[in-house]
């Protein structure tokens, strides 16, 4: 393992401290329990809190700020945060209209947030994101995983919350965006969890993992490496099949295309992937009218990418376009 580390046990706190220092105009960091909030506490709105294991930066702390999250709870690398973090964060950002938790659908995250919600002295609701369509046979699973589509959910719900909308309205929009969003990832290399010190899985020079999760958990299948267009073709196909299975018609629909880097794939390649994906989707009659390309939901140092397609309607478009000012997403202000 070759990484910028002082002591393995200090990686998380040193990284959080650097984040808070670099964005001290936007966020405040609390340690033990660890959570990050907006610098300026918002008032009279639903407080949006997310969280999850670390290693997916800029998810979630990078999305704290006007128009998006009020707080985020970072766990250890790839490990869900604990209920005491969520309770303390809720206490800090509660603004009279209840708490909305946005949680990626993993057993650990769900259970820890569930236990926090049970103890929480405020009204709360939860949006579970589950945009990953990688798992073919959903009868084998507890449900789909939440991956990069979570960013779109956080952006739209965060925008609605700023208007003073109530808890139920925020949850309803979050669920809708999640339902209309589908993602699939591909890994070219494994990632290395600092405390483990070696790659999570073995993958050879001529292989790729189709459907990889954002923790390096295996996906649909191991395949032979091939040219980018052919890989993207399979990813696009998987997403289209997912929308078909969800009975969401895709032709002539407007959509947002997010090409996300998993941590060690250069932007040059991500744009190459965007080029291929946008062309393939438009061949299927989908009008890509919004786009985002970059590292938005990473898996430490994994080389790979994920494609996320969100089917837009007027409401989603309005909340995607609205002003946002967070460390990792800023426009319109």
């Amino acid at each position, binding site marked *: 393992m070759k990484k910028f580390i002082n002591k393995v046990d200090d990686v998380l706190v040193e990284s959080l401290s650097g984040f808070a220092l670099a964005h001290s105009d936007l966020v405040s960091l609390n340690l033990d329990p660890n959570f990050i909030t907006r610098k300026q506490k918002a008032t009279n709105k639903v407080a949006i809190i997310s969280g999850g*294991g670390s290693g997916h930066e800029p998810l979630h702390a990078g999305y704290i700020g006007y128009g998006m999250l009020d707080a985020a709870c970072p*766990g*250890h690398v790839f490990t869900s945060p*604990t209920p*005491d973090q969520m309770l303390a964060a809720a206490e800090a950002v509660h603004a009279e209209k209840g708490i909305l938790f946005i949680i990626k659908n993993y057993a650990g995250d769900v259970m820890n947030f569930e*236990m926090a919600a049970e103890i929480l002295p405020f009204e709360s609701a939860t949006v579970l994101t589950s945009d990953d369509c990688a798992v073919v046979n959903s009868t*084998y699973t507890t449900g789909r995983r939440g991956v990069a589509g979570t960013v779109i959910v956080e952006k739209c719900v965060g925008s609605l919350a700023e208007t003073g909308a109530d808890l139920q309205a925020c949850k309803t929009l979050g669920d809708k965006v999640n339902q209309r969003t589908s993602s699939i990832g591909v890994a070219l290399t494994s990632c290395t969890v600092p405390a*483990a010190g070696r790659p999570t899985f073995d993958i050879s020079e001529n292989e790729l993992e189709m459907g990889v999760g954002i923790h390096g958990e295996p996906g649909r299948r191991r395949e032979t490496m091939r040219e980018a267009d052919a890989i993207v073709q399979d990813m696009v196909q998987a997403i289209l099949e997912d929308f078909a299975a969800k009975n969401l018609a895709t032709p002539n629909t407007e959509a947002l295309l997010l090409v996300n880097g998993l941590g060690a794939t250069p932007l040059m390649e991500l744009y190459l992937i965007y080029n291929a994906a946008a062309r393939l989707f438009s061949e299927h009659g989908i009008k890509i009218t919004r786009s985002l390309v970059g590292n938005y939901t990473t898996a430490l140092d994994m080389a790979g990418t994920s494609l996320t397609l969100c089917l837009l309607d007027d409401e989603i478009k309005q909340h995607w376009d609205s002003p946002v000012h967070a460390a990792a997403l800023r426009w319109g202000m």
Partner: protein
Amino acid sequence: MNSSFIVTATTAIQNTILQHESELESLDRAIGDGDHYINMKRGAQTIVEMQQELATLAPDVALNKIGMKLLSTIGGASGPLLASFFMGMAKIIKEKGDTSTATYASAFSAGVDTIRQRGKADIGEKTMLDVLIPVATQFTAMAAQNASPKEISTALKKTAEQGMLSTKDLIATKGRAAGLGERAIGHIDPGAKSCQLMIEAVCNLIE
């Protein structure tokens, strides 16, 4: 069983986790995400650091304290599940107010039930419950038959091992391995393995 036994057990649990580092890590790398050993090690370490305090507490208070501490230390899925187990166990011991074998058997079963509810999982889903449910059933049955602690611990170790091995041929329907479908077959579930190790370590303390 008293608080000094609980203290001894925490050391035994930490030792077995540390001794099986490479096995737990490779199981989790195969069908999980590689953090199970690190989380178990962190949890065990935190509890061992509480030993002095635990020794002064009544068993139910000590077990509840262990649960609360694990809840705020481990994270992931193991954190709330193991925490639920200890807190569920503490509740029964407090209610019954004695430290008989029968009380510990029903406390153990109650702990396993809270895991079942929290995880919304059952036997046959390639999780720690494939170890815990058969052990709880057997513990309760043997305690009802007034079996000796030694007989019980010997039998439970065997049952735990069978349960752990049974996860090898299962498709995971709960937990991080659930996305793998048939690719999970042939791999022992890391959570089942660590539970089996902990049960074995505690049973080994019973003469």
